């Protein structure tokens, strides 16, 4: 299996921008305030809505494995729909951000903050709202689940698309304009194809992320509101409550099958198809044999027939004259200044309103003492993430280098690592909880590894990719000058994989923060183990339906994650790109 280069997902976010020199731009502060405002708003709305339903008709109550195919189908449909919504979001939001000089910086700062908001936090504060949209019916719950999955998929896709739009080669855009393509036609014929390879890679990553949170998205429980939508996720939740080990194994099997089917039927063909959009490709690049699914699609006439009306419609749309909006009237300087003043004024007012609202909300509910307590919990979680990332790096970097230098081994290990990254950690909770109980271990320490269970693989497969990209020349030089042992690691192997490692570590760190909400509290039947940390705090507040504390937890986590990214990962990433990236 040939993998796409790990066009780092993080690169999209950390690549130099206009504010590359600044640590926190005014846009970041405005965006952060707006996000706080939204969180508080949703928390307020949720609290005031009467809990609309206690239970739903289709709740799974049986752990019969024969139900699993249907559940698997429902779960994958939910994920597909969420993926569709994410794509829609990507095409609109990212395009707006890339094309509008005025909105762009704010939208991007907003995206960066949203990416730091824990995914389960989104669920906690929005689920009641979604349920109230269609009281008493399944539809609202489905909406909530899809929204939850959407929040685990959309941000990095939007980042990647935005980054691609900003880096379309000038000559291609110019060619489009000289030959009379409208903005609409340029978008679909030039910009979107150009963005496609990295978008597809990000879609794959997003799908993994979606699986990781599938249990949380289908079995939602906030205060008195409990929902379990038929699906693999809620099946797992039920199996954990009922301490049914067989059912857990069945669920693992089902999930394996679904992930494999996705891989074979969707992502392999997509990746192979997307190769044609790579702009740097030369003939003679070793092109792997196209996967069977793509061959079948290409050779069958059916696909052509299905695509024909769509293609015709698109072709027709390219020929339409752009609406008058597309050619804005040149504005006089005075008008521009006036509208600038208006825009910045509005933004300042909105940010101030969010600040005021947050002040009122938190000021009422949260004491200083409690804030200090939450910050302390955040520090505990931070310590866990830091120690775990350090440990995982120490373990997986040498292994990754060893594997990456051996092509045959790489071919075996790489897909397994990628699969493991998609694997929801909840499935291993039963094992973990049983072990901790059996040996009477301290949960503060021994629950921690669960946080990195799913995310450590990002380090491994990025390092593997880095090591396999070490040029032949370097290895020959090392051999020729007898560079061995410690010197070889220090001078050749570690520097060569460093940028890749950083990419993996950043992804792993972000993922671990997210996972803390799931991992700092583990259930197995009626046994509940809890570690002291911000994740457990949010999870507890969610169980109690205590919106003020949910909101506080979310805001603190988002702020801490953003600050860690800005203060630590971003400078490190830039340094790695500048010094160690082989052009």
């Amino acid at each position, binding site marked *: 299996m040939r993998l796409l280069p790990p066009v780092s997902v993080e690169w999209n976010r950390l690549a130099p921008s206009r504010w590359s020199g600044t640590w926190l731009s005014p846009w970041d502060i405005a965006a952060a305030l707006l996000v706080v405002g939204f969180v508080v708003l949703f928390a307020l709305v949720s609290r005031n809505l009467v809990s609309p339903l206690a239970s739903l008709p289709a709740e799974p109550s049986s752990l019969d494995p024969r139900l699993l195919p249907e559940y698997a189908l429902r779960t994958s449909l939910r994920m597909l729909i969420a993926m569709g919504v994410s794509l829609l979001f990507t095409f609109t939001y990212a395009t707006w951000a890339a094309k509008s000089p005025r909105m762009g910086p704010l939208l991007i700062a907003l995206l960066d903050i949203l990416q730091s908001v824990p995914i389960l936090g989104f669920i906690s504060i929005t689920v009641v709202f979604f349920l109230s949209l269609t009281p008493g019916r399944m539809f609202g719950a489905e909406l909530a689940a899809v929204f939850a999955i959407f929040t685990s998929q959309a941000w990095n896709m939007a980042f990647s698309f935005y980054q691609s739009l900003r880096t379309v080669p000038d000559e*291609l855009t110019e060619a489009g304009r000289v030959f009379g393509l409208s903005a609409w036609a340029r978008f679909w014929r030039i910009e979107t194809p150009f963005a496609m390879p990295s978008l597809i890679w990000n879609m794959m990553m997003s799908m993994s992320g979606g699986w990781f949170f599938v249990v949380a998205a289908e079995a939602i429980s906030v205060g008195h509101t409990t929902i379990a939508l038929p699906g693999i996720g809620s099946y797992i939740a039920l199996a954990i409550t009922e301490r049914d080990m067989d059912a857990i194994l069945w669920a693992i099997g089902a999930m394996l099958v679904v992930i494999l089917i996705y891989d074979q039927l969707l992502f392999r063909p997509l990746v192979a198809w997307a190769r044609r959009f790579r702009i740097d490709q030369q003939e003679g690049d070793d092109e792997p044999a196209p996967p069977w699914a793509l061959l079948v699609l290409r050779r069958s006439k059916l696909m052509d027939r299905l695509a024909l009306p769509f293609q015709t419609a698109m072709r027709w749309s390219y020929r339409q004259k752009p609406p008058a909006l597309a050619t804005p009237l040149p504005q006089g300087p005075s008008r521009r200044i006036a509208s600038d003043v208006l825009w910045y004024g509005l933004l300042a007012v909105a940010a101030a309103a969010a600040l005021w609202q947050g002040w009122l909300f938190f000021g009422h509910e949260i004491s200083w003492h409690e804030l200090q307590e939450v910050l302390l919990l955040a520090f505990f979680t931070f310590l866990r993430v830091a120690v775990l990332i350090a440990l995982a790096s120490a373990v997986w970097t040498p292994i990754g280098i060893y594997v990456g230098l051996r092509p045959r081994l790489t071919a075996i290990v790489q897909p397994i690592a990628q699969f493991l990254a998609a694997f929801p950690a909840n499935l291993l909770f039963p094992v973990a909880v049983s072990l901790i109980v059996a040996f009477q271990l301290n949960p503060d320490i021994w629950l921690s590894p669960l946080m990195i269970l799913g995310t450590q693989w990002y380090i491994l497969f990025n390092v593997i990719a880095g090591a396999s990209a070490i040029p032949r020349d370097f290895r020959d030089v090392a051999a020729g000058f007898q560079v061995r042992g410690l010197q070889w690691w220090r001078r050749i192997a570690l520097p060569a994989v460093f940028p890749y490692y950083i990419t993996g570590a950043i992804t792993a760190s972000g993922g671990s923060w997210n996972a803390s909400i799931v991992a700092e509290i583990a259930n197995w039947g009626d046994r509940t183990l809890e570690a002291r940390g911000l994740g457990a705090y949010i999870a507890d507040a969610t169980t109690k339906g205590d919106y003020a504390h949910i909101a506080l937890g979310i805001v603190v986590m988002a702020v801490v994650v953003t600050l860690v990214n800005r203060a630590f990962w971003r400078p490190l990433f830039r340094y790695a790109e500048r010094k160690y990236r082989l052009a």
Partner: protein
Amino acid sequence: MRENTVLDVRHLRRAFPRPGGGELLVLDDVNLTLHKGEIVGLLGRSGSGKSTLLRLISGLAEPQGGEITYLGQKIDGPPAGIAMVFQGFALLPWLTVFENVQLGLEAQHIPAKEARARTLAAIDLIGLDGYESAYPRELSGGMRQRVGFARAMVVNPNILLMDEPFSALDVLTAENLRTDFLELWAEGQLPIQCVILVTHNIEEAVLMCDRVLLFSTNPGRVTGEIRIDLPHPRNRNDPRFGDLVDRIYVEMTAGRIARAEQQRAGLRAGIGMLLPRVSSNLISGLLETVAAEPFNGTADLPDIASDLQMEIDELFPVAETLELLRFARLEGGDIVLTEAGKRFAEAELDERKRMFRRRLLVHVPLAVLISRVLDERETHSAPKRRFLDELEDHMTPDAAEDTLRALIGWARFGELFAYDDETGMLSLENPS
């Protein structure tokens, strides 16, 4: 205005606002009239704004002053009837040859059947028959640029704009493509009225154009016009061909020298001088070549350019640097070594470094400034930013970065000062 005028450019000005206020001129007072049936060349170094001019004509950018009229109408936005061939081909890698060529027709209201016929005809005309279903990545550079030509031809443009269309190709392929193009042009087979060719290759200009406009750099101005009346097909060995090439070299170096004198006398003298990024190897190499047989200290620029396979974009910066450091003089299309230049060519490495260092301190005001600052500071070091800020009062941030980089390269060779890229610090200390 004459009957067959297709395009008229009057007093064109293009400028960018400078960060600290004021503006930077890219193009200044450019005039150009294009008639039916002619190929006009725009010849100049990079940074002379000729590509910018092309983008203004094609409606991709807007001028800050003056105007462009195309068939009597002012240009705003890309007009129909002007097509472009790009230096980097600008083909869409996800479309086949056929689809790439058809691109421009799709945007117009052309019935599918007619579009297909015209596309096939253009592919045929440009010699791409049989490649219709190939993807650009499967083609060689030459074939790719043919696709670029076919894509431009298929819309039957009145004006074909060519932005250094052959510069990304190897010598043989470029020659083959030029000849094919000229043949079709001479036979009247091409559906175009006139051509503007941007190039920095003097021989290419003489081979293809009816008129050549010479551009100066910073800002771009038209400094001269040379008419080329040789009949097609033109022969590079024709003495008249060689004379024209010589004449262009003379004019281009003469214009440059006059401007340099102006600069020295005027306000822009001092650290505002743009320095080209030329490596010390090239400087030594050119000095050695000119000093040796058969040149013996005096070389004809066209000769040496063809001997070394260098285009003016590569050769002129080196020659200018030699002149700046008084290692050579440029006179009437020749490069003549000074006494110092000859000594340098014969010297050993250490002596060369010494000479180089001394000359930097005499002739390059920025080098003087930096050494003085480093000397005066107690730490003998200063951040790069400090000097960039000062340079940016005189030039764009990009040019400032280039200029400082050029000087850092020279200073390293002359061991004048050191630079640490990690910390961005210039210092007098060398690693011991």
